[in-house]
């Protein structure tokens, strides 16, 4: 078995995960098991189901046509069956992405599609749709001395007492070739995320954050024209709740898993401790130093 620490959880798996940062010591207690096993095509008496998924008694069956099937159970186990002729790496993308996201939802965490860095011992998150520049911004900030915390799937542990915390992702950055060239990260490139894809796993620059950090701020990324100014606007409570809901990992899962009340309640608890803002900035990589400068000034303004 291979052992990893992902989203603050000890994970044991019988396949190697090229997208994980480090392997932990063998023999440690694992909270999560992920292994190859026969996975049924359907569940008996599902409580709800869709075209490619079904749910019953704490189990979630997810079918990725022509790639793999995943059975995610009780927030503790992911069984997966890879279709014949499919490259293991292609299935791992789904395993570490949505399948692990479903498992985190089962564990009752607030799971967001976001990247994160550490700012003076606190977690700062960047939400946004794919292509908005979450990973690139986290990589650039890590290169500018802010410890990397998270890429892509960001889970917030809300326990009701004290600030919610964000554990280090444990996964590598995923960057397009043009971004890693511009950020001079070529020597930290590990492997292609998938065959025929110009996107790569990359060791984040600097030393990643080693422990869970209290949540302090959440930004929604919006792409601006290259000539436009960088704008940061504070969101009111309703706008902030909508930002989090739109950036749930994955938005449809929250509805399908009937997590709406939990997600809403946890969002408000998180916002008790974290300011929420819109950050509108050019997607142009050459604007990145200006974006970082503006963010650094904003962190001073809000006392971070």
């Amino acid at each position, binding site marked *: 078995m291979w052992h990893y620490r992902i989203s603050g959880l000890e994970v044991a798996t019988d396949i190697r995960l090229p997208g994980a940062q480090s392997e932990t010591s063998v023999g440690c207690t694992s909270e999560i098991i992920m292994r190859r096993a026969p996975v049924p095509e359907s569940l008996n008496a599902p409580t709800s189901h869709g075209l490619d998924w079904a749910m019953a008694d704490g189990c979630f069956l997810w079918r990725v046509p022509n790639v793999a099937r995943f059975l995610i159970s009780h927030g503790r186990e992911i069984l997966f069956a890879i279709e014949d002729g499919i490259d293991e790496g292609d299935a791992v993308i789904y395993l570490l992405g949505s399948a692990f996201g479903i498992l985190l939802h089962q564990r009752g965490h607030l799971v967001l599609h976001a990247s994160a860095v550490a700012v003076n011992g606190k977690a700062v998150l960047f939400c946004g749709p794919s292509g908005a520049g979450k990973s690139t911004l986290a990589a650039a900030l890590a290169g500018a001395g802010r410890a990397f915390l998270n890429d892509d799937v960001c889970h917030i542990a809300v326990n009701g007492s004290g600030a919610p915390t964000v554990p280090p992702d444990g996964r590598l950055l995923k960057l397009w070739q043009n971004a890693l060239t511009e950020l001079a990260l070529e020597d930290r490139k590990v492997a292609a995320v998938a065959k025929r894809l110009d996107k790569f796993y990359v060791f984040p620059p600097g030393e990643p954050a080693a422990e869970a950090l209290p949540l302090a701020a959440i930004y929604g990324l919006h792409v601006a024209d290259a000539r436009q100014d960088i704008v940061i606007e504070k969101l*009111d*409570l*309703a*706008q902030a*709740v*909508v930002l989090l*809901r739109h950036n749930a990992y994955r938005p449809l899962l929250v509805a399908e898993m009937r997590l*709406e*009340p939990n997600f*809403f*309640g946890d969002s*408000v608890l998180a*916002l*008790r401790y974290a300011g929420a803002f819109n950050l509108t900035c050019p997607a142009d990589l050459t604007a990145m130093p200006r974006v970082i400068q503006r963010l650094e000034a904003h962190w001073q303004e809000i006392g971070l």
Partner: protein
Amino acid sequence: MLVLSSTIKRSGDLLQAQLANEVVVMSIEAGAYFGFADVGKRIWELIEQPTVIADLCTRLMSEYNVTAEVCEAETLGFLNDLERQGIIHVTNP
């Protein structure tokens, strides 16, 4: 169509939470969100039970320095928004 004699009632499937002086309400059924502060928050509090809009306006006029004309027009506009978002239901006499 909302009129002063309409009775309004909060929808049944709402999630709501308050933080500092803001209230956020979500209709699960409609997938819609609404935020209230200041007078909007006060109106939300006052319609916890089914309420006739004219009675609501009388109450607001006793609490705020506002003419009947402005109060009724703005309250009806506000409640129309809530109805469109599925946050309240309306019964006309």
